């Protein structure tokens, strides 16, 4: 049983880490389309690992079934919402930020010409 406990703790900690990583991505990334990518991390890996840890704590009961249903809900609604959001944003004329825009923005904010060192890195 100690093995199950350790496994569930590890899964819960990994899930928490991915949730924080996704939230930081939602805050830090440059435009809607990249933020969408970060937000999906929260509900796939983050919620997945955390709920897997909770399932190991609950054992083989009705609670595990409910957790599984919530994960199934995330599994189906996540792509639907992301697709609707991307389509609505494109329809409203929100342009994705390309690498050229990023280079302009960086060289505008930093006047020491340091933007060349970021060459080849995707935003």
């Amino acid at each position, binding site marked *: 049983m100690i093995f199950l406990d350790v496994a569930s703790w590890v899964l819960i900690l990994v899930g*928490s880490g991915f949730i924080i990583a996704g939230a930081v991505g*939602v805050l830090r990334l440059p435009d809607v389309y990249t*933020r*969408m990518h970060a937000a999906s991390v929260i509900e796939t890996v983050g919620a997945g690992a955390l709920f897997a840890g909770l399932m190991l704590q609950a054992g083989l009961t009705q609670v595990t079934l*409910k*957790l599984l249903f919530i994960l199934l*809900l995330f599994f189906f609604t996540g792509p639907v*919402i992301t697709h609707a959001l991307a389509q609505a*944003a494109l329809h409203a004329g929100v342009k994705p930020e390309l690498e050229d825009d990023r280079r302009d923005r960086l060289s505008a904010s930093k006047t020491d010409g340091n933007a060349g060192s970021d060459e080849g890195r995707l935003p």
Partner: protein
Amino acid sequence: MFAAAMLAVIAALVLVVVRVIKGPTVFDRVLAGNSVGTLAIILVAVLGFLNGRPEFLDVALTYGVLNLIGTLAILKFFRHGDLAYDEQEDEA
């Protein structure tokens, strides 16, 4: 251990709410609002385990369904300017 997970989820909620407040376009706000809903579901689930009463999962499940409907309704409103948008009516 559940307390650590709750702290992580609350920290993530704070970061995402900052994006809701800042977000330059309405779509940033909708995206971050949807993330707030997802994090609330996770928070309710973990809170149930923390209190030793996992029956809260029913609330989380209901909240997930409402979150989907709400986000889609907001997106439809901002795309068509009308919740009762009809494609046939638009073509005629």
